[in-house]
């Protein structure tokens, strides 16, 4: 059970490193970790405006509505504003940037299998109709300003910033600084996005990748941002931006994952703590 032992060692090492010095949250090149938690919903950000206003025939929108419900509605909601597990498409940046399917067609053809979204092989007319419906819905929701699953920043304002600062100093300052890495955080994230970011950072900008240190059989040590990690292999992105994969049975390794402290904290927060820390971070404009 070397796997378990290595993870335990990695956790201890991470704790030691975090106590000593927090790594700065630097964006890392390359593809985001495939199995990370779903991206944060941008529900409390303003709806990104449609880059190219576009209209569609009513009949096409109606057909699209039917096809959308069948193919997309469970995850994205029958009205496109989010369902079980899938984001609100009226707030999607891809939809906002799309012009008559130039972005959405390739996106739908490829899917996002890592997030459970299949590649869609639909007829051209069905695909066009679905895209027409999504844009039509977006236009409607832009007009009314807000989707069904909306959480307003004002809804979250129940915490006490002073008590949040106390909690932050005790629990978060091991890795973070209100005047360092988190200075201006409230200017980058507001409302629900800020709350999600404080609980477990995902999405853009990407949080720092875990750092892996790998000792080869030859004794050579390589290290770098963790690219993939499962029970059997581990990969890092090397200095040249190339992914290097190793079979775990051939190497010794340790992983320093700054986010593990966020995960551990989830079991400790009271709801009051969470709202207080949010209130404190919301002052860091």
């Amino acid at each position, binding site marked *: 059970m070397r796997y378990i032992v290595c993870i335990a060692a990695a956790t201890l090492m991470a704790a030691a490193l975090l106590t000593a010095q927090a790594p700065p949250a630097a964006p890392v090149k390359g593809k985001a970790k495939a199995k990370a938690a779903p991206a944060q919903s941008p529900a409390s950000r303003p709806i990104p405006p449609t880059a190219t206003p576009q209209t569609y025939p009513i009949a096409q929108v109606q057909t699209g509505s*039917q096809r959308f419900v069948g193919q997309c509605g469970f995850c994205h909601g029958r009205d496109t504003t989010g369902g079980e597990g899938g984001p609100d498409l009226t707030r999607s940046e891809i939809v906002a940037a799309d012009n008559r399917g130039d972005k959405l067609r390739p996106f739908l053809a490829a899917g996002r299998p890592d997030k459970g979204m299949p590649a869609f092989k639909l007829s051209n007319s069905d695909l066009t109709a679905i895209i027409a419906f999504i844009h039509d819905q977006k236009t409607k929701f832009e007009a009314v300003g807000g989707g069904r699953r909306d959480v307003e920043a004002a809804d979250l304002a129940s915490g006490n910033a002073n008590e949040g600062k106390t909690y932050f100093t005790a629990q978060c300052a091991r890795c973070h600084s209100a005047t360092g890495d988190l200075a201006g955080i409230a200017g980058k994230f507001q409302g629900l996005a800020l709350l999600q970011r404080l609980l477990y950072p995902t999405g853009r900008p990407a949080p720092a990748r875990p750092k892996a240190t790998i000792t080869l059989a030859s004794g050579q040590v390589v290290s770098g941002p963790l690219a993939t990690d*499962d029970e059997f292999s581990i990969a890092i992105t090397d200095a040249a931006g190339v992914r290097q994969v190793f079979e775990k049975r051939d190497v010794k390794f340790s992983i320093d994952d700054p986010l593990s402290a966020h*995960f551990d904290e989830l*079991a400790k927060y009271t709801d009051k703590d969470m709202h207080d820390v949010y209130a404190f971070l919301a002052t860091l404009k």
Partner: protein
Amino acid sequence: MRALLILCIAGLAAAQSDSWLTYHGDYSGRRHSELSAITPANVAQLKQVWRFQTGQNQAIKASPILKDGVLFLTTPDNIWAIDARTAKELWHYTYPPNNAFHIGHRGAAVYKDTVYLTTPDCHLIALNAKDGKVKWDVIIADSKKGYWSTNAPLIVGNHVLVGVSGDFDNVPGQLKSVDADTGKTQWIFYSTPPPGATEPKSGGATGGQMWTTGTYDPALNLVFVGTGNPTPVLNGKNRPGDNPWTCSIVALNPDTGKLVWGFQASPHDTHDWDANEIPVLVDANFNGQPRKMLMQASRNGFFFVLDRTNGKSLLTKPFAAVNWATGIDAQGRPIPDPAKEPSRDGVLVAPNEAGATNFRPPSFDPVSGLFIVNAQDGYGIYFYKPEDGSYGWAGADYNITGRSFIRAIDYRTGGIAWSHPIGDGAGTAGVLTTKTGITFTGDNSNNLLALRTIDGTTLWHDPVGRMQNAPIMYELDGKQYVLMGAGSSLYAFSLP
């Protein structure tokens, strides 16, 4: 390992070796194979012997049915008959386009020479098993009201028990029994009051859909089915009380559809934690006494052991991160913490909406007494404000993160015997155990896994792809097969 006294009675006999006749393989829901050719010593020699590609958008979320050497595999709107030795397609039936939710399909059912397929728009189609010709087509529920179906029916006698889904709308939970020969409705069981009925006990809740396949005890003549969450989903204010029989296990007489007993896994659920996970039937000793038990690892994070003759609790223990209950009541039910109901400013809740586990089947290994389940320690934030209303979802919730494990629960204590990490996020593979001490399942990195049942050590793996259901196992011409769906392909493995 301690020796266990597991009582075998005819009614709970294991699946036949040359067939897989229900979603679970048999009526018990244990998903345990008595086949013995594949052992911990030789499992590493498993090789892919065939692959069947559906060519569909939708991943395989079904367990195939095997009868007379023919596999029946489904995805939404589709069913294939496949030669179980070669994967040659014998026939393929496609249901006409329809606009209900196409989110997955859990499998077919067989009776004599008929195969049954539920459709997204809540029809039940009876097909000739030989050629896929439609014998009849009946409507199970009104899809325009918000019902859809992914259900693998359960057949008991001449009853085809068909469930539906539907928690985007305030519609009652219904399980329909259909005559296997004629398609005529025999009875409907409503888990919440049917339209027009007033029944104060439910507190005004609708929902409680029975969308997974139940289990059956022939000796007691009882069918056991899990029920889904109440609607409105996150707004519990408009439906006071426990909201029976949502988030429950119900025991029904299959001849009449009458409720014999019910047990609520989540009284007054406000987190979408369906109790639809498989109710697994086990006959064994509990606290030194022979018992007919029912076990469920529920989406809400608790493992339940019930006396299935009467629904009384024997054991309730969490098997994953849980922060929403203040204790266990006298009936063995978790007591929901009102402070963890969705709120305007949000509450941090474990598990998240995906649950501590979900529909992917667990397995019970009678040799070790371990109940093995794909489990997640997950966290989410839940919101509700009066402006969200009281229809459908009526609130918002967001996953924060989670870590998943294959966990082995000792049914005698509820303790975790071992916990095998499988990666971040919710796991999506179910579990099958074998008499020889192997646990087949999958991780979150596309690996089909063979673990040693006694301690969770990895014995073999194969990178098949993203798995969305549990393995099945059978033997034909002396050759033992393990089948697992991944993506849009079904893979068969065997020893050389």
